[in-house]
C-alpha cells in the first residue's frame, strides 16, 4: 500500500467524511429492500445522525483551523481519490444538514404512507430521493477528484429530476424533461473539461491540478466548457429557462430542496474550479463576463418575479435573481495585481449569500406551499387575509424576504454588505449599483405579497386544510436561521477561509 505511515494522521480525522457520504447511501439501499413506510422511518432516523456528522466535521474544521482529508482505500492521488473538507466544504455541509433536517420535519405531513397500503409511490420515492440529494451534496462538498464530482453531479440530477415530477401532472413532466436535458448536457460539458485536463496533466485531483495547471489552449478550453456546463446546471441567466417551471411545479418540500440546495451543488463546483483548480486562468475579462451574467440575472429575475401572478412562480423567479448575486463575487474576488482570483472577503460574501439564500428560500418555498395547501391555490391576488389565519407561515415568508432583500441583521444583509464593500473598495461601482437596484426590486415584490397577505379579508378566509403547527415551525426555524446568520459578523474568525491558500 502507498505510504501507509504518512496516511495515519490524514485518515484518522477524515473518517467522518466517508460516513457523511456512505450513511445516506446505506439508507437508500436499505429503504429499497425493506420498502413501504420503513423508507420514511429510515430517513427520519438518519436525519439527526447525518446532522451530528456534519456538525462534527464543522466543529473539527473550525476548532482545528485546518482542513480534513481522507484517502479512500489507502490509494493516494493521482491513482486514488481523496476526500477533503476545508472551511468552504464544512460551511456548506452544515447548511445542507440544517436545510435537509428542516425539510425532513416539514415533509412528514405531506409524504406519509396511508395506513391501508404497504407502500405508496410518492412517499417512498420522496424519502429515498431526500437521502440521495443529501449524499450527492456531501460528495460535491468533500470530493477532491473531478471525476468523482462528475458522478456526484449526475447523482444530484437523478435525485432532483424525479422530485420535479413527483405530482405527475403533465406540466411538471414537461418541466422535468427540460430540466433533465439541461442538466445532462451541462454534465457532459463538465466531463469534456475533465477529459482535457486529464489529457494535459495526468490527474483529476484538485490539489494536484492546482499545482500543475498552466494557461495553455487545452486548459482554457476546459475551463470555458466546464464553466458553461456548470452554469447551465446552476441556472444562471440566460440559461435559467428550465428553473422556474421545475421549481414552481414540484411539491413544496421538493421545491425547497431544489431551490435551496440543488442549484448550490453545481455552484459550489464552479467555486472549486475557479478558486481552487485554476485561480489564475479566467483573467479579468472572464470574471467580468461572469459578473455581468450575474447582474443580468439579478435585474431580469427580479423584474420577472415582480410580474408573476402565482406565489410559487414568484419565489422561483426570485431564485433566478438570487443566483445572480452569487456570481458577483467572481469579479470582486479578482485581484488585478496578481491577475488571479483571491480568497478574501468576496469569497466569504459569496458563500454567505449561498447559505443565507438556502435557508431563506427553503423557508419561503415551505411557507408558499403551506399557503397553497391552506387556500387550495397560490394566486397572489387571492391570498388576502391569509396573514390572520396562518401568522407563523406568513411571518416565516416575511423573514425569508428580509434576507433576500438584504436587511439587517439577516445573513443576506451581511453577504450583500460584504459584496458592496468589496465593490466600492475595488472601484467597481457598477456591481454596487446593480445590487442596490436588485434590493429595491426585491422589496417591491415582497411588499406586494405581504401587503396582500396582511390585509384583512372582507369575508373570513376559508381554509381547505388544517396546517400542522410543526410544518409552520420548520419553515420559521429555517427563516430564523437565515435571519440570525448575520450575527456571525460578530464572531472574530471566518470559517470559510480555513484551509484556503491565502489564509494561512
Amino acid at each position: 500500500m502507498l505510504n501507509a505511515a504518512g496516511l495515519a494522521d490524514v485518515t484518522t480525522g477524515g473518517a467522518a467524511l466517508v460516513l457523511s457520504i456512505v450513511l445516506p447511501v446505506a439508507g437508500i439501499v436499505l429503504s429499497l429492500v425493506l420498502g413501504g413506510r420503513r423508507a420514511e422511518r429510515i430517513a427520519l432516523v438518519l436525519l439527526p445522525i447525518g446532522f451530528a456528522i456534519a456538525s462534527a466535521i464543522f466543529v473539527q474544521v473550525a476548532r482545528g483551523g485546518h482542513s480534513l482529508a481522507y484517502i479512500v482505500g489507502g490509494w493516494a492521488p493521482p491513482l486514488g481519490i481523496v476526500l477533503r473538507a476545508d472551511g468552504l466544504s464544512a460551511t456548506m455541509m452544515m447548511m445542507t444538514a440544517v436545510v435537509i433536517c428542516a425539510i425532513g420535519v416539514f415533509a412528514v405531513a405531506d409524504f406519509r404512507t396511508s395506513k391501508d397500503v404497504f407502500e405508496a409511490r410518492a412517499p417512498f420515492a420522496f424519502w429515498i430521493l431526500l437521502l440521495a440529494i443529501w449524499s450527492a451534496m456531501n460528495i460535491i462538498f468533500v470530493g477532491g477528484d473531478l471525476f468523482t464530482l462528475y458522478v456526484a453531479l449526475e447523482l444530484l440530477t437523478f435525485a432532483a429530476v424525479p422530485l420535479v415530477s413527483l405530482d405527475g401532472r403533465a406540466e411538471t413532466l414537461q418541466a422535468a424533461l427540460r430540466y433533465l436535458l439541461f442538466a445532462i448536457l451541462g454534465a457532459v460539458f463538465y466531463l469534456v473539461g475533465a477529459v482535457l485536463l486529464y489529457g494535459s496533466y495526468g490527474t483529476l485531483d484538485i490539489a494536484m491540478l492546482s499545482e500543475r495547471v498552466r494557461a495553455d489552449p487545452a486548459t482554457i478550453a476546459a475551463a470555458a466548457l466546464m464553466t458553461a456546463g456548470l452554469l447551465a446546471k446552476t441556472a444562471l441567466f440566460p440559461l435559467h429557462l428550465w428553473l422556474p417551471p421545475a421549481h414552481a411545479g414540484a411539491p413544496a418540500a421538493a421545491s425547497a430542496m431544489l431551490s435551496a440546495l440543488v442549484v448550490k451543488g453545481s455552484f459550489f463546483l464552479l467555486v472549486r474550479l475557479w478558486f481552487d483548480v485554476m485561480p489564475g486562468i479566467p483573467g479579468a475579462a472572464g470574471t467580468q463576463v461572469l459578473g455581468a451574467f450575474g447582474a443580468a440575472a439579478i435585474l431580469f429575475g427580479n423584474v420577472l418575479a415582480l410580474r408573476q401572478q402565482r406565489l410559487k412562480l414568484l419565489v422561483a423567479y426570485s431564485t433566478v435573481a438570487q443566483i445572480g448575486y452569487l456570481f458577483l463575487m467572481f469579479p470582486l474576488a479578482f485581484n488585478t495585481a496578481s491577475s488571479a482570483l483571491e480568497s478574501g472577503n468576496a469569497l466569504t460574501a459569496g458563500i454567505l449569500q449561498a447559505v443565507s439564500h438556502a435557508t431563506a428560500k427553503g423557508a419561503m418555498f415551505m411557507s408558499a406551499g403551506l399557503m397553497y395547501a391552506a387556500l387550495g391555490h397560490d394566486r397572489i391576488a387571492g391570498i388576502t387575509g391569509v396573514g390572520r389565519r396562518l401568522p407563523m407561515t406568513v411571518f416565516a415568508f416575511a423573514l425569508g424576504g428580509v434576507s433576500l432583500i438584504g436587511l439587517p441583521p439577516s445573513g443576506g444583509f451581511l453577504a450583500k454588505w460584504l459584496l458592496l464593500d468589496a465593490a466600492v473598495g475595488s472601484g467597481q461601482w457598477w456591481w454596487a449599483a446593480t445590487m442596490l437596484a436588485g434590493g429595491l426590486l426585491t422589496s417591491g415584490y415582497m411588499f406586494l405579497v405581504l401587503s396582500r397577505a396582511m390585509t384583512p379579508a372582507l369575508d373570513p378566509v376559508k381554509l381547505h386544510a388544517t396546517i400542522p403547527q410543526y410544518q409552520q415551525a420548520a419553515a420559521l426555524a429555517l427563516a430564523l436561521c437565515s435571519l440570525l446568520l448575520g450575527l456571525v459578523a460578530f464572531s472574530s474568525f471566518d470559517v470559510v477561509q480555513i484551509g484556503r491558500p491565502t489564509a494561512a
Partner: protein
Amino acid sequence: MTTSLALDIGLAGLIFAIGTWTVFARDSLAAVIGFVGYGLLLAIIWVRLSAPDVALTEAAIGSGMTGMLLLGAAARLRPAGNQSTRTSLGGRFAIGVLCGMISAGLAIAILFPPESIPSLAPTVMQNLAPSGLGNPVAGVLFVFRALDTLLEKVVLILALLGVWSLATDRAWGGVPGLRIYLEPSNTLTFLAQLLPPVGIVVGVYMCWVGANVPGGAFQGGTVLAAMWLLVMIAGLRNVPPIDGFWLRFLLVIGPVIFLAIGLAGFVLADAFLAYPAGYAKPLIVAVEVALTLSIAVTLGMLGAGPPERSRHS
C-alpha cells in the same frame, strides 16, 4: 499512408457520417436504427484504441440497451408526429457556427497534446500486483477508484427509482408494461428458449474473467439483462411486480456487499474501501458477482419501464 491508417480514417469518417445522418434523418425510427449501427461501429473504434473493456461496454450498453430503449420509444411515439415549430434559418446558422467553433476548439485541444504526455499506466501496473487482478481496467474500477464505481451503481438505482416514480399512484407496486410490445409468436418463443442458456453462459463468463481479461460486471450484467428481457418479451416469464422482495433484494445486493466490504476495510484493512492484504482478489470477485446480478436486474427493469398494471388486475 499505411492501409490500417486508411481503414481507421475511413472508419472515423463513416461513424461521423452516420452520426450526422441520425441528426438530420426525417424519420425518428430510422434515425434510432442508424444510432444502433453507429454504436456497433464505435465499439470497433474502441478496439482500435486498445480499449476492449470499453468496446464491450459500448456495444452492450451504449448501443444495445440504449438502442432498445430508444427503439421502443420511437415505435410508441410514431403516431405523435411533430407539430412543433422549427428554428429559423438564421438561428440554425448561428447555432451551427457556434457548434462548429466548439468542435474546432476541441479538435485543436486534442490535436496538440502537451510535450510530455502524462499517463498513469506505469503507476497502475506497479500497484496492481497486490490485488491479484490481471486486468488493469478492473483494477482501476474496483481497487483504486472503487468509490466512483460504488456511486455509479447508486446512480443506476436512482435512475430506476426515477423511472418507477413516473407510474400512476394506482399502479405502484404493480407490473411494468414492457415498452417493446410484440405479438406472441412461435419463432420468438423459440429464440427465447434457445438463446438464454447461451447468453447466460456468456454473461457469467464475462463477469468471471473480468478480473483478468477484458469483461466484468457491467458487460456481463448487461448480457444477462438482455436475456431476461428477451424471456419476458416472449412471454415465457412474467415481469415481476416492482415491490417483490426478491427483486428489491437482487437490486441492492451488489451495492450492499460492496459497501459492507468497503466499511469492513475500516477495521480489517487500513481504510474505507481498502481490501485486507491477501484477500483482495476473492473479495473483488465477490463484489463483481453481486454487482453483476444487481446490474442485470436494474438494467432489465429499466428496459421494462414504469409499472403500468396493478398486480391483481
